[in-house]
């Protein structure tokens, strides 16, 4: 049956992309479009005394200038997290009396072209009184200047979670090890920044917003509320999206503002984010400073783990800002049996851009804490880091595995992945080589990460706005198959992988299936692509929708063939008795293209006296509806909303081997092996791509990337000249392999893979560097590990 699923199928979305013919937001051109540019705060914290827009509005080509007082009708930027006692600042789309971070929008200039709008920004005079900025997250928690006087302090919320008696567990340990761990702020840097095009038709009272987003339907709901337009008069279209990584899993001030401006002016308006704006005012990721304490027995058995963390939330809550550290708390058991776990979160306001979901979203932090802790235990006890991990794994027959963080891991075989990775890298020989290298004065290090992550978000109980995903599958009168998915992929390749699922299930050619997404005017309500959920949740919705459709088609085919429904089956695109016989014999028929319908008027279905019917013939009969079984709705489509009962838990082992240059402190990769288990694989080529990209983002975090605000709150990594991304020559050849433990949570058996690389890799890389420097007594290093810091250790 499976001709496509599991195969390395080339992507159907690629031809338009490699020819330069795809349409991202800025490639959509509407007549009479006006262009918006923003005046943004240059201060991290200041009172606005006055804004003088008179010169800007006089400039040739400028149509309008809006400031905070003009936009009172637009509702606040929403936060979807509802934590007990959470303090929520009033986040207006343009600054009111004060600005709270560098890059906060203060005024919007509308002009006939983008150059004029940009020029006029410089003509808006804002008079500020600077206020003391709150920058360091630990200092923010302790006191000093308060950002929001009405809140009394800078603490947005405190939260404690976990199971087991942590104090007793730690007290009963043979060893207690503590470590301060920093997860630096990162900028997601999708290669396409954000962009919005809005067009209002005053007569029809309809607003269309094109936005580079991961969540078109959720965005529509939120923008309808913010702008005050009925949701059914607002259409959100997500054209090609040039990467998201969580940064477009949000509702931004600019999106509402553009819609509102278009309604004011009755014309299309466009804003395309520049890269400097992107680093200032698109969400950041990570931003935690924490203190871990882990307890263990002398044999390496882990007894308990506590993590006290200060989360640098930034000045405002974006959609999920306060929720991210709670995901860290959920994953603090890692891939280990830990009887007692506690997380204590202190979420703090700072005068910076908000942190929110960046690829991994709270789970890379947890994995890093747990994996670094395992290395610390290994170092303390003098046990090999692989063996400390192995000793604490739950066995495959212990799944579903309950953790002291309250989760039930679906399935896993952690030792198999570790074994395979050790075998691939030749672990024992490598340790011998390391000994010789050390004796020769070389700094060779080996780092291991045996991660587990939480994916396929998730049951609706665990999500702010629905944990399901939707699909509609339709067979058109000509037999072509249309799949409408509520997931909104943006580079992951679901136009192909969902077509693989549907084509296999329908026995049709892949090229006869078209997958449509990202348009609320066409697609039924959906949730979106994030949390490695699109295939596990959205792909399952496609599968079940097709199965529903086939039940109906089978009934219609049997009626037309004048046989009992149970006596026919579907194979190779045909309903027939022969297929039923072949299925009974365990044979399968070849997949056939649907072919083209005859030109001209739709033909009458010709079904009389046939031994079998093609899906095209059944679809045509269903649509012309002249001879259907009693009580059968015309048409041939089915919709399914799939809500999983649990999350999925992909896992794996990554091993990095590095050598450090004594002269420069530079870190060079010698090997990188990754064995990942994401359950069943729909398209191995796409899975490899997700892993490679994720691992390289981890390399970025481990070695290069950091959003830096100076102690005055000024952003000093404001462009790609200062914010260092990994380039082609920085990264090693990645040796990938898989184990396959199906998830019982969905019928596809898939777990998700979008974030695995970003979650699993950083501890392996930092662990390797620490291992290389262990002759100098190094036990831990903060990311990004820069050559200067390494050089100072070697030359101390």
């Amino acid at each position, binding site marked *: 049956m499976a001709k496509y699923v599991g195969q390395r199928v*080339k*992507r159907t*979305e*690629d*031809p338009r*992309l*490699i*020819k*330069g*013919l*795809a*349409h*991202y937001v*800025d*490639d959509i*051109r509407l007549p009479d479009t006006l262009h918006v540019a923003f005046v943004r705060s240059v201060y991290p914290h200041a009172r606005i005394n006055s804004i003088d827009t008179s010169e800007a509005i006089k400039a040739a080509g400028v149509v309008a200038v809006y400031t905070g007082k003009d936009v009172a009708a637009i509702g606040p930027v929403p936060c979807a997290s509802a934590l007990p006692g959470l303090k929520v600042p009033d986040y207006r789309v343009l600054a009111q009396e004060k600005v709270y971070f560098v890059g906060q929008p203060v005024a919007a200039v509308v002009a006939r072209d983008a*150059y004029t709008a940009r020029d006029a920004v410089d003509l808006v005079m804002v008079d500020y009184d600077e206020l003391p900025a709150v920058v360091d997250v630990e200092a923010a928690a302790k006191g000093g200047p308060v950002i929001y006087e009405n809140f009394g302090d800078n603490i947005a919320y405190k939260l404690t979670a976990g199971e087991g008696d942590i104090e007793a567990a730690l007290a009963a340990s043979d060893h207690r090890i503590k470590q301060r761990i920093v997860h630096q702020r990162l900028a997601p*840097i*999708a*290669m*396409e*920044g954000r962009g919005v095009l809005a067009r209002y038709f005053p007569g029809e009272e309809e607003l269309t917003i094109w936005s580079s987003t991961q969540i078109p339907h959720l965005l529509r709901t939120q923008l309808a509320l913010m702008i005050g337009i009925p949701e059914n008069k607002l259409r959100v279209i997500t054209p*090609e*999206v*040039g*990467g998201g*990584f969580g940064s477009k899993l949000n509702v931004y001030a600019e999106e509402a503002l553009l819609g509102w401006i278009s309604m004011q002016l009755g014309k299309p308006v466009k804003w*395309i984010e*520049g*890269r*400097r704006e992107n680093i200032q005012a698109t969400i950041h990721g990570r931003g935690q400073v924490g203190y871990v304490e882990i307890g263990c027995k002398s044999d390496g058995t882990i007894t308990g783990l506590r993590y006290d963390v200060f989360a640098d939330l930034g000045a405002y809550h974006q959609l999920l800002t306060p929720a991210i550290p709670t995901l860290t708390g959920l994953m603090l058991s890692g891939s280990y049996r830990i009887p007692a776990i506690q997380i204590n979160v202190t979420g703090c306001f700072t005068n910076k851009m908000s942190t929110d979901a960046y690829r991994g979203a709270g789970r890379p932090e947890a994995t890093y804490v747990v994996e670094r802790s395992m290395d610390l235990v290994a170092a303390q006890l003098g046990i090999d880091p692989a063996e400390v991990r192995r000793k604490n794994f739950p066995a495959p027959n212990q799944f579903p595995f309950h953790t002291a963080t309250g989760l039930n891991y679906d399935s896993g075989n952690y030792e198999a992945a570790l074994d395979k990775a050790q075998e691939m890298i030749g672990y024992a020989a490598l340790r011998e080589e390391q000994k010789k290298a050390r004796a020769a004065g070389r700094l060779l290090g080996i780092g291991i990460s045996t991660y587990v992550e939480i994916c396929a978000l998730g049951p609706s109980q665990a999500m702010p706005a629905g944990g399901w995903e939707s699909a509609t599958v339709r067979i058109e009168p000509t037999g072509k198959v249309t799949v409408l998915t509520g997931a909104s992929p*943006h*580079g*992951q*390749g679901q136009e192909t992988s969902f077509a693989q699922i549907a084509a296999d299930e329908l026995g049709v050619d892949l090229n006869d299936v078209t997958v449509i997404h990202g348009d609320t005017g066409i697609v039924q309500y959906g949730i979106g692509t994030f949390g490695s959920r699109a295939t596990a949740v959205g792909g399952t919705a496609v599968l079940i929708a097709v199965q529903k459709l086939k039940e109906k088609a089978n009934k219609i085919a049997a009626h037309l063939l004048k046989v009992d429904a149970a006596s026919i089956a579907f194979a190779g695109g045909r309903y027939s008795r022969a297929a039923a016989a072949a299925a009974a014999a365990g044979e399968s028929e070849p997949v056939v293209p649907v072919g083209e319908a005859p030109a001209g008027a739709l033909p009458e279905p010709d079904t009389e006296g046939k031994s079998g019917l093609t899906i095209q013939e059944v679809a045509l009969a269903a649509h012309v509806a002249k001879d259907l079984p009693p009580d059968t709705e015309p048409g041939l489509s089915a919709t399914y909303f799939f809500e999983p009962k649990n999350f999925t838990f992909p896992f794996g082992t990554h091993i990095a081997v590095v050598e450090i240059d004594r002269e420069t402190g530079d870190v060079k990769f010698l090997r990188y092996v990754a064995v990942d288990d994401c359950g069943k694989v729909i398209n191995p*080529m*796409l899975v*490899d*791509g997700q892993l*490679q*990209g*994720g*691992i*390289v*983002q981890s390399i970025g975090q481990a070695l290069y990337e950091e959003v830096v605000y100076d102690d005055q709150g000024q952003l000093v990594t404001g*462009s*790609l*000249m200062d914010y260092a*991304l990994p*380039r*082609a*020559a920085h*990264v090693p*050849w*990645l040796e990938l392999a898989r184990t396959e433990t199906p998830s019982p949570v969905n019928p596809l058996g898939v777990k998700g893979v979008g974030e695995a*690389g970003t979650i699993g890799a950083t501890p392996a890389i930092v662990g390797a560097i620490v291992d290389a420097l262990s002759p100098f007594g190094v036990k831990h290093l903060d990311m990004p590990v820069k050559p200067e810091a390494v050089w100072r250790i070697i030359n101390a």
Partner: protein
Amino acid sequence: MKKAISLSVNGISQQDEVEPRLLLVHYLRDVLGLTGTHIGCETSLCGACTILVDGQAVKSCTMLAVQADGSEITTIEGLTNNGELHPMQEGFWERHGLQCGYCTPGMIMAATQILDRNSSPSREEIRHGLEGNLCRCTGYQHIVEAVEYAAKK
């Protein structure tokens, strides 16, 4: 004061009057409607806007349209020959050298330059040749394989 320019883009001659400050990438995208060339950084670091000017890979966000007067330009839209994919485009498709596709046009144009200079580059040489172009999705490995595929064609 607008300036007259005359140039060839993808084999078609163009005459226009443009503002002296108009960036070449905006001329291509906004005047000629060739939106396959993308803008990713404002600081000449990402390479999404890479095109060929007289056969040389150039970041078109760092060149003025008036500086292109008299030149021959090839953009991603001009790489396809009578509907046939260029071997480099084929390589990116075959080897999954793209995900979101945003860096892809610039990446493909830069990659053609690598093979123009060295028809059988090593993996290290390919990686070095791609250093002016950022990709945030692929981790570069499949892009390296795509260039190897094209080199063998």
